[in-house]
């Protein structure tokens, strides 16, 4: 299977700050998803982004498949953004998750 690495592993922000989370993958992928796991454990879809750039409110994501990475941008962070952010890369029929970036946004 492929290796998926996320950085940074931990991130502390003051409310209102911006951040960039990175996801590197070791081989070609068919698609790439970003998820937010909230403090209650629920996994919430953020982006399905095999390539290109997408935006949804304060969040945006970019995947450069040829260079094997994806970035998640969070602007004007809020305390509700706290939790763990995962990327998942699909290779054939299997999805491989990174270990996540744990984000703590302080008021």
């Amino acid at each position, binding site marked *: 299977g492929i290796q998926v690495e996320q950085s940074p592993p931990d991130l502390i922000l003051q409310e209102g700050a911006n951040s960039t989370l990175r996801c590197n993958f070791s081989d070609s992928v068919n698609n790439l998803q970003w998820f937010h796991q909230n403090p209650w454990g629920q996994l919430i*879809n953020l982006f399905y982004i095999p390539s290109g750039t997408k935006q949804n409110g304060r969040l945006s994501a970019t995947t450069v498949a040829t260079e094997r990475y994806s970035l998640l941008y969070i602007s004007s962070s809020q305390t509700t953004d706290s939790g763990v952010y995962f990327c998942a890369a699909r290779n054939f*029929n299997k999805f491989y998750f990174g270990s996540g970036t744990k984000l703590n946004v302080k008021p």
Partner: protein
Amino acid sequence: DAGITQSPRYKITETGRQVTLMCHQTWSHSYMFWYRQDLGHGLRLIYYSAAADITDKGEVPDGYVVSRSKTENFPLTLESATRSQTSVYFCASSGHPYEQYFGPGTRLTVT
């Protein structure tokens, strides 16, 4: 529209017992997946299914059995539970273009 549900949400069982975790989706998605999430780790794929009666192993299949007789259901069975199988189990489904949607998870404790 319930989407994807899992039951039970919490389960405590003893070592050596058989336990089955249920997953049901209402979208008629072709693909369904079982993952486990352990503290400090991302999710690891246990088994997946591309369609009814088609299943295949993921990264960590040992000790687990799956079946898929109907498109909407994908049960996961631990035939003889071990303490190392204490984890949070997530079921997911995807249709085209393979965007996954996750259930709420089942927290399993094996004593």
